[in-house]
């Protein structure tokens, strides 16, 4: 293009150019219109073939290869044992699925879909987007009361069929602890003492990351539950207790005590990088979920991963609570196929099968980074790490989900993520921080 073209904007040079530009404009407009309608079409695809009674469509957020294959194995096993029922899986990228969940459930959702337990499920149950499966639950066996509670909506009905979970704990390398003679700490003071020792030994005591916004929430949850107990944490998440409460400040104060031992620059580090530094023995410990370190350790070092439960802070709360996010399956109320009684029956049959220990075994065989929720699952095939994780959760008095699963999604994503990141980069202004959180919390929870 030359300069003169810019000067005469809107006055085309030749007739030919004129016609071309108009045609391409129309074409562009058509493409634009297509782009607008595309999302609608995409959700329409989720509908799948009309309800023939035996085909169940299933919306999956397991886009990573390992879980994707593990789920495929499980569904294949289901199809093999059922008479003629088929599971048609629509896999969507994990984060995209999460971000579109509201629209997905209101549009044309699949019959069955994967989602999370706790408040993150109750939120949609309250909006009437989930199908009540209380009758299924009467037949379910092998689920603890804690699991049932996490699968229950605010109205007392069950909506979720739990499948697996993964506890959070403080992870470390067994060989490193053995070489240096470190002992897993029981209390916060021992934890700090160990961290101090590691610092002396030229290690980053605690690998720390929060670039993605959620990893540091695990530390917050544990600090809060160990300091103030599960009941307090629950009501804090429900918006009943003020964030300006003395007990919340105490949590941040304790955290500030730990920060000097945490890797610096956490807001610029992904969880993968943090897990890497654990693997390379640059860092000594890290608060993670069960699948996280495993994903970054080479195969022959997997056995070297070990963990200890988050240390005790207030003796009266001990190590009662364990953070163990539960994933499971739900029925979407707006699914057209479920209006067909036979399809609904098929979908419920699938859930019943998925609720068995055997179904969980098939999944975990291909994805050993989680543990089964059912106590009928066969744990003899578990790795030592998985067995230890089972011990941890089965000894738990309460099971929490995760900050972003235990509270409102709008609160956790627009308030808590920036707030925790701000705390990490400026830990000294706790007053300003909790006031900020409380003010925003009030407006968000008031919105209803």
């Amino acid at each position, binding site marked *: 293009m030359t300069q003169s073209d810019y000067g005469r904007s809107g006055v085309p040079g030749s007739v030919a150019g004129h016609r071309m530009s108009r045609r391409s404009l129309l074409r562009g407009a058509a493409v634009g219109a297509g782009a607008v309608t595309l999302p609608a079409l995409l959700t329409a695809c989720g509908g799948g073939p009309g309800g023939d009674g035996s085909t169940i469509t299933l919306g999956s957020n397991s886009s990573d290869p390992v879980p994707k294959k593990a789920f495929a194995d499980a569904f294949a096993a289901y199809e093999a044992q059922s008479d003629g029922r088929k599971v048609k899986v629509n896999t969507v990228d994990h984060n995209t699925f999460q971000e579109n969940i509201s629209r997905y459930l209101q549009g044309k959702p699949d019959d069955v879909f994967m989602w999370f337990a706790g408040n993150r499920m109750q939120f949609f149950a309250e909006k009437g987007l989930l199908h009540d499966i209380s009758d299924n639950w009467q037949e379910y066996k092998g689920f603890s009361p804690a699991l049932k509670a996490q699968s229950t909506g605010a109205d007392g009905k069950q909506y979720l069929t739990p499948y697996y979970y993964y506890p959070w704990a403080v992870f470390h390398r067994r060989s490193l602890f053995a070489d240096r003679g470190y002992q897993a700490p029981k209390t916060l003071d021992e934890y700090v003492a160990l961290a101090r020792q590691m610092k002396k030994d030229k290690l980053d005591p605690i690998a720390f990351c929060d670039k993605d916004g959620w990893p540091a929430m695990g530390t917050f949850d544990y600090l809060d539950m160990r300091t103030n107990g599960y009941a307090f944490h629950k009501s804090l998440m429900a918006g009943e207790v003020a964030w300006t409460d003395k007990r919340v400040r105490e949590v941040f104060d304790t955290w500030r005590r730990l920060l000097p031992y945490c890797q610096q620059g956490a807001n610029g580090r992904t969880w993968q990088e943090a897990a890497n530094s654990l693997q390379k023995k640059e860092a000594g410990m890290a608060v993670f979920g069960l699948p996280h370190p495993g994903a970054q350790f080479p195969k022959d070092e997997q056995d070297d991963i070990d963990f200890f439960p988050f240390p005790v802070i207030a003796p009266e709360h001990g190590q009662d609570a364990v953070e163990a996010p539960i994933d499971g399956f739900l029925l979407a109320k707006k699914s057209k196929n479920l209006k067909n009684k036979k399809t609904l029956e098929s979908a419920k049959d699938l859930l019943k099968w998925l609720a068995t220990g055997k179904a969980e075994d098939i999944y975990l065989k291909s994805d050993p980074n989680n543990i089964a929720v059912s106590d009928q699952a066969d744990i003899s095939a578990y790795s030592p790490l998985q067995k230890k994780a089972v011990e941890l959760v089965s000894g738990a008095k309460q099971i929490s989900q995760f900050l972003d699963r235990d509270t409102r*999604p709008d609160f956790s994503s627009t308030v808590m993520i920036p707030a925790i990141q701000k705390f990490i980069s400026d830990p000294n202004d706790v007053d300003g921080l909790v006031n900020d959180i409380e003010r925003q919390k009030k407006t968000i929870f008031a*919105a209803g």
Partner: protein
Amino acid sequence: MSLIPARRTGRRAARRFTGRDLAVLGVLLGIPVLLDAAIVWGPTLASVMLSFTGWDGVGDIKWVGTQNYENLFTNYPQFWPAARHNLLWLAFLGLVAAPFGLLLAVLIDRGVRFSRFYQSTLYMPVVLSLAVVGFIAQLVFSRDQGALNAVIGDTGSPTDWLGDPDLNIWMVLLAAAWRHTGYVMILYLAGLKAVDPSLKEAAAIDGAGEAQTFFRIVLPTLRPVNVIVGVITVIESLRAFDIVYAVNHGRNGLELLSVLVTDNIIGEASRIGFGSAIAVVMLLVSLGFVVTYLVQEIRGEKNR
């Protein structure tokens, strides 16, 4: 020039419009107008309306008056930093990247050696999407595994280029400017090629120095390019989004208005009313620039 005859033929033809002509005209004008209304104005007005409501995307839409705006200005810690960052973005691209692009264009235009090579190298980033630029920025600036810290060799207490909220905006601006400079350069290069050399010769004969020739003769003749560069700079800085989103989802020092809109509307948050209020603020800011530009253009047309 071509405008006037075109208009005349148009008038003459007006007398001979048949029903079919009118139908064709109606369709050809109608479709774009409808598309414009449906795709541009409809959503815009809907956003403005929604900004006065509270809506979570599922339940009922509640009228809340100006409450969203009050919250936005007084009770949303990310808002003012985001607005500041957008302005900083504009200033940086406009005052640093664009002049630097002009400088490069002038140097290349004067015929340095390997000018083709420089030209293509500097233009290369423009073909990359900003999301990719953001990804590259992470490879370079990451604290633990980034190239920059590896080159500096600072392993004791490495600088956290992208995690430090006082620093990361500058690193991202650098990456954005890297791309913008090439874009501006290519525009000016095209403009410079079209500057009549006899103008420069005349100036030289009249005894003007290099600098004088450039600022008094060449730059004014580049006015149309300047306008284009100004416009794309404003657009780039208002719509800046992908690069910070790729780096850290636009948090922790990298807040931008566009990111706040996305955070609130898209995703599980679904604070659609509140997000719309931010979008309306963005709309008003862009309108400010658009109106200024149009007024200038219309005045310019009149003077011509």
